């Protein structure tokens, strides 16, 4: 009767099912125990607090959040701020990281030494110190509002941040945005055509030069024309500070600078490792084909190094997203500061709030991992 147990596959499945049941039971036990104890101790529990008024001011938000909104809206504002600073920092950290990683392998002694010093400096300093250094460094370097640095009389930089004008009406700008989209699409089509032609005839086409003009210069012209036709909310000095326009707060700048320069040090090492993994023979072969040094790096070395670079690069991206929580130390209103800080203290519901925050970081990290894995699979060289 129990003969089916002799099948190894069946036994494995049974063991795993038993393990899963134990795990679920354990979690259920702890959750129930915690909630019972909290009710006994008179501590509020449940998720109703998310729909209560938050009453908390957020000085930097892109969601139009107001203190009279709910705690849920506050959470969303925190998420958007985390995503914003992470996204911008990832792009810049990658750019700096690749540059430093390549420079470290450069044959120029000065450049490679400088890159090496940078990497060692960054890797051996705690991030919290880095964040505080940038924050108080940025603050100390900037003038008071009354002595603001002014650019063309419409943009002002001081200790309260960078005040930039915002358009009152978007129609003019929408048109120029549309123009840019059209240009980018045209450039993409051109690049495809140029590649196909090169494959067919072997003749090169100056795609980059054309692209620089169409995708670089023309959008600026379009923006200037569109901007001139729009009325702007220009910051003006009223009482203590500049009012109107959009204020890029120093907390954002400091956190962004700290995260990107810090993570760049680690990315540089991943890039160096990846490039060193490319066999010399491949480079020699590329040189034998007559490719220029720039093209060897772009078309041979980096594509071959990418499969080695991507896994550590993914870890660095995940680290950067998690490290954005250091913003709490300098009052940058990201998830940890507004939700695990202000909202937690005003509602007192630590368990729920920490669980939600964990879930958000987990979701963000898994999404980034999935994307990187997809990218890796898509761009991996087919090896035989």
């Amino acid at each position: 009767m129990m003969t089916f147990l002799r099948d190894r596959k069946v036994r494995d499945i049974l063991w795993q099912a038993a393990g899963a049941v134990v795990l679920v039971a354990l979690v259920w036990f702890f959750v129930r125990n915690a909630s019972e104890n909290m009710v006994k101790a008179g501590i509020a529990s449940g998720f109703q607090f998310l729909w209560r008024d938050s009453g908390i001011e957020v000085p930097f938000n892109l969601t139009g959040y107001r203190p009279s909104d709910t705690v849920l809206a506050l959470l969303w504002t925190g998420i958007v701020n985390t995503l914003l600073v992470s996204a911008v920092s990832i792009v810049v950290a990658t750019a700096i990281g690749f540059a430093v990683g390549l420079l470290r392998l450069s044959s120029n002694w000065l450049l490679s030494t400088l890159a090496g010093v940078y990497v060692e400096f960054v890797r051996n300093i705690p991030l919290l110190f880095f964040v505080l250094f940038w924050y108080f460094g940025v603050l100390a370097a900037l003038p008071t509002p009354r002595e603001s640095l002014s650019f063309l009389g419409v943009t002002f930089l001081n200790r309260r941040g960078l005040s930039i004008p915002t358009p009152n009406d978007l129609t003019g700008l929408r048109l120029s945005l549309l123009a840019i989209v059209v240009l980018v699409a045209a450039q993409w089509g051109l690049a495809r055509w140029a590649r196909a032609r090169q494959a067919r005839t072997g003749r090169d086409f100056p795609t980059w030069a054309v692209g620089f003009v169409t995708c670089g210069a023309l959008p600026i012209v379009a923006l200037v024309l569109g901007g001139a036709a729009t009325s702007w909310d220009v910051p003006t000095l009223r009482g203590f500070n500049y009012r109107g326009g959009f204020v890029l707060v120093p907390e954002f700048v400091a956190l962004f600078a700290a995260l990107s320069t810090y993570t760049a040090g680690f990315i540089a090492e991943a890039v160096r490792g990846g490039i060193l993994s490319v066999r010399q023979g491949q480079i020699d072969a590329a040189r034998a084909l007559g490719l220029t040094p720039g093209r060897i790096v772009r078309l041979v070395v980096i594509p071959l190094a990418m499969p080695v670079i991507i896994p550590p690069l993914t870890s660095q991206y995940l680290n950067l997203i998690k490290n954005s929580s250091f913003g709490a130390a300098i009052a940058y209103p990201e998830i940890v500061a507004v939700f695990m800080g202000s909202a937690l203290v005003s509602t007192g519901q630590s368990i729920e709030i920490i669980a939600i925050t964990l879930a958000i970081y987990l979701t963000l990290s898994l999404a980034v991992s999935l994307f990187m894995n997809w990218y890796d699979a898509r761009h991996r060289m087919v090896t035989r």
Partner: protein
Amino acid sequence: MKVYGFAAAMACLVATSAGAQQLAPSPTLDAVKARGNIECGVHLGLPGFSFANDKGEWTGLDVDYCRSLAAAVLGDANKVKYTPTSVQQRWPILQSGQVDVLARNTTITFSRNATLGVNFQGINFYEGQTFVVRTKAKVNKVADLADATICVAAGSTEEKTAADWFRERNLKVTIINFQKNDDAISAYDQGRCDAYTAGIGALAGQRIKFKDPAEHQILTEIISNDPQGPVTRWGDERWQLIVRWVLNAQIASEAFGITSKNVDEMKAKSTNSEVRRILGVEGKFGDMMGLSNDWAYNIIKQVGNYGESYERTVGMGSALKLKRGANELWTKGGLLFTPAFQ
């Protein structure tokens, strides 16, 4: 034989219940006595309230409360273990039982009382919220701060009070919330903000942390009344009783003129019944709480009455130089009074 045995047992039972009063169980008190010290949650460092001085000794009004509690419960005011807590840490630390009591400039509010599982056991300081600004900013009243940037500690009552106050008056301000008081203070000092907001008592103490205290000015206008006092967890009613009446004893002894200097004389000579009950000469009030009858005597002898404590820590005898104001006895125009020791 059986009858005698039963009678003897009954006699024993009557004798025990007559000899010692049966008290409700108090796990916290038992734990404190077994441990031999009071675990007291205090501020990370607020001069005048709870601040470790250069010798590493904790001083301040809230610290004096912790010392009074130790004197009453253990007979020795020095048997206190201080746990410095941030604005955010204070609730979990109290809820989880890591401290026996929280004496940490904590404002009594409805939602804290209703949702955090904590009880406020009285008021040892009436705090009022105000702002500190640079003298050269020429701000005289709070409304002058329209369009200003204000630094505040996140999760404090001040954060919400300030936001509400300006919103109700349709004044726009930018509020930057820092995780720690000290970070908010140093950001204000660095020029990130035009003002820093906190209680007037807290500001008097924090002002000395500025690079140049003379450049700053504390506004006299108060935008809220924030009563503060010791906090306990829900449950263990007898411990709550002790925490409440230790504070009452501090204040009542000032009202009756019992000081650390005359306490022995008062104990020997006073004819006032309430004084005699406080000092354990009559009434056996200590027994009723499960403490020794000289519990309040120990407080006054070792720490002093509320007035002595106030003058030494935040009043004229301290660096803060705060007037008594609302924190004066009701008979002298303040708000302090206690229920009767009857």
